[in-house]
């Protein structure tokens, strides 16, 4: 497959270039994440009004929903990175996918545990075998499988490819998993945010939520870039630019 891509795309393939670009972007994302997360959490936990039914317990939404969104976005990102890595033989894409996996797994764990804490007062159970919960649990298993596969290969390039294949298979399966468990049992409420519909909450509730989601994305980007840069250094430790980098900085 040979599809012509714009120039920046090929520059991304160069480890040094992407290392530098990420180094430039990282502080901005870190700052944005800090501002957004602090604003969102203070607003959401202290100033947003309580819910008419759930009272204050609904406030866990400000942690729960963004991490659930991130958990899924992260998997999509890994699948896209996997395709790019396989089709254009781009090492950096594989490294991004590998660095993203543990972050996605952590987000899934956060979503599951905050969901359990939220579920107890509202549904009356820590855990129910409901569609959303079950498919998130399966997502966690997929993440764990991918991470295990990365570490099972002593040769990193092979591990990258193997994990990409598994990610792609997993991404094909996610709609099926969702569909199957949805037909099987349903309790969880529908999505709070959709692109097409107006949010079913007043602004003083959803604006902090939106801020939190954006903050999570910035935080995710920040951590992802940090992890990617470390992995880049590790894999390229013999190449000229890393040596130069290490000798230049005292």
């Amino acid at each position, binding site marked *: 497959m040979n599809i012509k891509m714009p120039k920046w795309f090929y520059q991304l393939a160069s480890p040094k270039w992407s290392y530098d670009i990420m180094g430039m972007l990282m502080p901005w994302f870190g700052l944005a994440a800090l501002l957004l997360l602090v604003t969102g959490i203070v607003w959401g936990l202290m100033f947003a009004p309580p819910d008419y039914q759930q009272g204050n317990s609904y406030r866990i939404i400000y942690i729960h929903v963004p991490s659930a969104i991130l958990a899924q976005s992260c998997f999509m990102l890994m699948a896209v990175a996997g395709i790019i890595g396989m089709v254009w033989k781009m090492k950096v894409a594989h490294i991004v996918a590998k660095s993203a996996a543990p972050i996605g797994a952590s987000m899934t764990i956060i979503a599951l545990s905050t969901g359990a804490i939220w579920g107890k007062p509202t549904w009356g159970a820590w855990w129910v075998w409901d569609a959303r919960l079950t498919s998130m649990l399966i997502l966690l*298993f997929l993440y764990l*499988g991918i991470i295990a596969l990365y570490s099972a290969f002593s*040769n990193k390039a*092979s591990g990258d*490819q*193997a994990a990409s*294949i598994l990610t792609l298979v997993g991404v094909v*399966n996610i709609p099926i*998993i969702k569909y199957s468990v949805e037909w099987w049992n349903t309790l969880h409420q529908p999505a709070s945010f959709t692109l097409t519909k107006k949010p079913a909450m007043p602004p003083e509730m959803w604006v902090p939520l939106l801020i939190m989601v954006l903050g999570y994305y910035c935080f995710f980007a920040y951590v992802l870039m940090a992890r990617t840069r470390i992995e880049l250094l590790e894999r390229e430790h013999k190449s000229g630019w890393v040596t130069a980098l290490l000798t230049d900085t005292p």
Partner: protein
Amino acid sequence: MNFLNAAIKRELLLALRNRSEIINPLAFFLLVITLFPLAVSPEAKVLANIAPGIIWVAALLATLLSMDSLFKNDYDDGSLEQIVVSPQSLALLALGKVISHWLSTGFLLALLSPVLAVMLFLPSEAMPALVGSLLIGTPTLSLIGAIGAALTVGLRKGGVLISLLVLPLYIPVLIFGAATVQAGALNLPISGHLALLGAMMVFTLLLAPFAIAAALKLSIRN
């Protein structure tokens, strides 16, 4: 297609020469089912209730158990290398291997399942659903399992890893497979369930051979 045919024949011949590969999953299936009346309760009502789930879980585990060796021997003795350096399609060969694997595990499990259903007091109305769901569902299990087996064939400790990679992907098949049997036991129509299992089978049949071939190439070139 000729090549596919030849590949299936060769694998079946190999399985016949090495019968433990056929017998082990069946014996495992039988043994696991036997454990439940002993551990849960020998009461007919209780067993009939959980029978669809147990039989399906046992069939799934028996398939998974046999997955580890699917490509291992070929990898170790150089047969896989010979296929990769031949002009024949690796995807087609992988498909042939999976089909013969299914014939020697899933297919036989489905044939054996009525006996186990009787042991677990599953109502006789559920028999067609049980056999039908296993016949349509287990090929999907073999296909997905083969992806995991191909990814881990070159690794020293691949066996445990396969379960971790493959089990999450097995869940939809398990849900619909067991639901088919439950519906059958309640005398409800099962055609909808079987259609879904069929859709999943066709879907994996279309995609899995390519994933298996890519994974095998990767494992060999590692």
